[in-house]
């Protein structure tokens, strides 16, 4: 009886959309911006390691998954570990971004962010970290700019073998053109992206609602549900020209695996990446299946390269207990051994 009352209360809250948990709350400053793109610097007075860590986020989802809620935040854990953390957030692309190609990100925005981070921190190098498709951008950047001031490269849930990406990639090999799904702004609309992800696990939506009904009485579950499903349903438009290039080069040509990559007209080879390298894969990832990430470790040219395989899902790599227990400590361990410990010269995030 009591559970039914709690179900009714939480159900009303969910439907009304009230009492949503705050997401992306870790204090930060915008230290550079161009167009919709911003570079964030997270505030911290516990910085103990140099060089700073620059996170390159995915082009199709919202970056707050890395800073979900206080106490369940990947960013928070990195700050607690003593890193100086920056993140490139692509904002919400509109019609002005429809012509953006991959080279805009790989040759312009990421290098500009790296330079700005070096300028603010005074460090010679940065540790680069790519999440999901941001990992692909980071790989292309590192491969296209072998002289880039990078200390190390870490990628998480980053697909390289797009033949293993399931129905979302299959439809583009089966005759669908990117132009068929563009909206009036010239971008792939978020609902298409969300629908694409939902097709990967066609019954998950029903299971999700059934589990919600079963555990609707639990405030803790409802709060986590709101934060997690809020993120998985909350995507951003994918710039049309970048989507065309992605489909042709990465999906149809499977360029990462077949070594048929080009950025801005130049041939790019993942084997040119010779930095200390870490790839993190999730065995239960339904968005980026483990088979899609598997070949990466053999494709990069680094001698100092490592692969971390975890029994987690896509989101479980960065949020929740598995992340806090395994993923984050492993990543922190990798970065620590590629960083110098130093007394904090000044608190991060004082640029104004």
């Amino acid at each position, binding site marked *: 009886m009591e559970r039914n009352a709690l179900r009714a209360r939480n159900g009303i809250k969910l439907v009304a959309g009230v009492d949503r948990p705050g997401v992306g709350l870790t204090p930060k400053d915008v230290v550079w911006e161009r167009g919709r793109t911003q570079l964030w610097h997270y505030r911290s007075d516990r910085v103990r390691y140099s060089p700073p860590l620059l996170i390159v986020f995915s082009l199709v989802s919202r970056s707050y998954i890395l800073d979900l809620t206080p106490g369940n935040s990947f960013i928070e854990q990195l700050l607690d570990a003593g890193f100086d953390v920056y993140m490139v957030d692509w904002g919400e692309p509109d019609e002005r*971004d429809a012509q953006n190609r991959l080279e805009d990100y790989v040759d312009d925005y990421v290098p500009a962010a790296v330079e700005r981070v070096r300028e603010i921190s005074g460090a010679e190098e940065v540790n680069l970290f790519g999440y999901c498709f941001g990992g692909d951008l980071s790989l292309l950047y590192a491969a296209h700019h072998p002289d880039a001031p990078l200390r190390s490269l870490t990628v998480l849930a980053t697909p390289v073998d797009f033949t293993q990406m399931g129905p979302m990639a299959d439809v583009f090999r089966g005759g669908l053109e990117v132009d068929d799904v563009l909206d009036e702004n010239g971008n792939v609309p978020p609902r298409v992206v969300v629908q694409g992800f939902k097709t990967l*696990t066609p019954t998950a939506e029903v299971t999700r609602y059934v589990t919600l009904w079963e555990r609707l009485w639990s405030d803790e579950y409802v709060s986590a549900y709101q934060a997690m499903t809020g993120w998985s349903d909350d995507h951003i438009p994918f710039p049309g020209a970048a989507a065309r290039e992605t489909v042709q080069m990465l999906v149809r040509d499977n360029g990462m695996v077949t070594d048929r990559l080009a950025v801005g007209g130049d041939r790019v080879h993942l084997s040119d990446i010779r930095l200390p390298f870490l790839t993190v894969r999730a065995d239960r990832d339904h968005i980026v299946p483990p088979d899609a990430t598997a070949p990466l470790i053999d494709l990069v040219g680094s001698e100092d390269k490592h692969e971390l395989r975890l029994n987690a899902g896509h989101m479980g790599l960065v949020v929740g207990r598995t992340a806090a227990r395994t993923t984050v400590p492993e990543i922190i361990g990798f970065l620590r051994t590629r960083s110098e410990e130093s007394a904090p010269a000044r608190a991060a995030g004082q640029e104004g």
Partner: protein
Amino acid sequence: MTSGKQPEAPLWRQAFDAAEKRVTPHAENLVRTPGFATGVALLRRAQNAAKDTARGVSARAWHLVNLPAGTDLARLRAQIGALDREVRRLTVQLETERRARAAAETTPEEPDADGTQPAGGPRPRPARRGAQRPPRA
């Protein structure tokens, strides 16, 4: 994902989990068939063909009274978007150049400050003007 293994799961949940276990592999196999991909493509094209026809009729109506149609505005927005992109890229590239120059000025004794490059090493990549292609027609 499911809680069917928990001993305290209610009967209805156990029944759902059993059904889900049977249905999910079939559903996942279905969406991975070539027929599904072709079906999605055909459906999308049919939707677009219907939309294009409606847009064409509406555009002709607006043009009859000398007014721009939605398709004309879309074209303009695409052109402005392309221009915006060019300006953004140039700004970023200028910023990068300025930073590089400032850095070179603070370290004048840098070995390749005269512009020469080490023979075997990677060379810095200049802004790629050739890569800034006009928008697709």
